[in-house]
């Protein structure tokens, strides 16, 4: 059997401490009584209460959520189509270029993506604002959706689609009744990923949004530049909390399902 050595345990403990300590500290100091973020002066939730009165921040949050919902939904549709195109049609004209356009945004420095999209909007005369922001978010998040869905499609057993057609389902019926339900969990995680990426983005948003469409990260950024405050810590804590909750719930649900499936399988073979 594989042994888990002391070295292994130490690497994991140190690795995770490194990953999580800064976030934990940030969360802790959001409950600090004092305005100083580095000196603990007692527990308080006053910064959270204060947030509720910060209308500009609340507005920014509302913009962020709206952009996130719209862009994640459109990006999921586009990304799923792109993943289908990548996995199902191995030969079409310009496939290399297509796969380049899927993978490149994953690593492209955001300043380049942001600047180039802004210049596009200016060139075609679109006023910068909510919709340019949304278009930009759709574009960069759809590639992440495409990659997530693609990896599911690669392990997809094509014979179940053939079986559906063999039983009389047209290609469209096959897609809707067989393919889509089977890849639905991956499509859903693609959506969640797109939503959080949109929620978190600063650089691309800064380039592509305009007056009246300030997002939460843009708001946070402009305040961070003025210094670290417990109020920002509180906003960040809420954002982290939302994302962590989402991911935790999703993974617990999928874990449960997995365990149930394994149990079912064992039960089936015990018969």
């Amino acid at each position: 059997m594989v042994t888990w050595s002391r070295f292994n345990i130490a690497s994991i403990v140190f690795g995770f401490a490194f990953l999580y300590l800064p976030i934990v500290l940030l969360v802790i100091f959001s409950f600090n009584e004092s305005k100083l973020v580095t000196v603990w002066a007692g527990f308080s939730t006053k910064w959270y209460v204060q947030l509720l009165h910060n209308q500009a921040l609340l507005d920014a949050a509302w913009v962020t959520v709206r952009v996130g919902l719209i862009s994640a939904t459109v990006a999921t549709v586009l990304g799923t189509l792109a993943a289908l195109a990548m996995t199902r049609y191995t030969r079409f004209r310009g496939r290399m270029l297509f796969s380049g356009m899927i993978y490149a945004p994953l690593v492209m420095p955001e300043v380049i993506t942001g600047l180039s999209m802004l210049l596009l909007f200016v060139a075609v005369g679109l006023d910068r604002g909510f919709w340019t922001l949304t278009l930009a978010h759709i574009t960069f998040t759809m590639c992440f959706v495409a990659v997530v869905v693609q990896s599911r499609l690669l392990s997809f057993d094509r014979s179940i689609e053939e079986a559906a057609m063999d039983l009389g389902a047209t290609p469209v019926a096959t897609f809707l009744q067989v393919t889509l339900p089977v890849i639905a969990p991956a499509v859903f995680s693609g959506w969640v990923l797109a939503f959080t990426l949109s929620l978190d983005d600063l650089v691309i948003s800064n380039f592509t949004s305009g007056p009246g469409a300030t997002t939460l990260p843009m708001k946070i950024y402009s305040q961070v530049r003025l210094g670290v405050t417990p109020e920002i810590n509180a906003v960040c804590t809420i954002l982290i909390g939302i994302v962590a909750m989402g991911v935790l719930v999703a993974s617990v649900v999928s874990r449960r399902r997995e365990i149930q499936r394994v149990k079912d399988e064992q039960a089936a073979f015990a018969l």
Partner: protein
Amino acid sequence: MKSLGSIRRSFAPWADPASVPFIAVRNVTKKFGNFVAVDNLSLDIYPREFFALLGASGCGKSTLLRMLAGFEQPTSGEIVLDGQSLAGIPPYRRPVNMMFQSYALFPHMTVENNIAFGLKQDGMPKPQIAERVDQMLKLVKLDKFAKRKPHQLSGGQRQRVALARSLAKRPKVLLLDEPLGALDKKLREETQFELMDLQQQLGLTFVVVTHDQEEAMTMADRIAVMAHGKVIQVATPPEIYEAPNSRFVADFIGDVNIFDGTVSAAGPGAVEIATEAGFKVRLASAEAPAVGTKAGLAVRPEKIRVSRDKPSCAPLNAAEGEIWDIGYLGDMTIFHVRLKDGKVIKASSLNAVRAVEDPLGYDQQVWISFDENAGVVLKD
């Protein structure tokens, strides 16, 4: 109900020139790029026939089956089903159904929804669907499992669901790609007979792909032996075994000893061959190859006798050698006998009695011999 055997014996539409094939494969070629997977292949399959495609892995069996189902289009040639050309007809409009090697059950649907899937596509009214699904579940003895999902079933149960699903639409032809390949040996043997019963009961045409010769021999009315995209021989299991038309088929099905030689005499009903192993063979043969041509001679191990004493037919159909290896299998014993020229031949003898007095042992000098009708002449 009539016994299977009696139905089988009288079932031979391929021998009747008046009968019309149900599926006709005409000069079909399938290329993948430059690779020829199916090579100018022609076949006739008759109504209610249990037809097996047998061949080594990669010889193009699945490709042929997938062309029947409509998942692949022939590069050239034509497939006719019940008098109608299938060219250009997509899989979802063909009156055939397929049982997939991987079963391809829909993982997100219960057993009954899997079975109902094809019926729903046809727009069959709900009560009728329910009735048909029930009937299919009973047929494959899965009525208790209707509400389960595929992952809650064992391998054998999944296989039955796949079968029920492909039969639910009452297809004219059922295509089965290695239907028993994923089952263990015991279950496979049981299921073979169940499949045969089912086919008789429903009166369907089955085309089954397999690489397992025993499976093909057990189930099929006729077997097509394939190699490299071509059909080498199409015949009933006994013909394939006892009268292979080529060295390939003789070697592929069961064990065989092949002697090379030259035809030394050919008379009506019999041929004489001088083998390279140094003895003469006289065989009953309907065909008479020309004297002086090269010919092969195939003799199955169970048709070769091994004895200490010189057989009466010697020197014809007999040769001397020594026992080289002995394999005791319980029901029979396999002898490897090394002839004078070094050729090793296999002979098997049934262990009809429990204890043989003075059994043959290693290194003993023995004679091998066989009857005039024990072997076949191979011309290639």
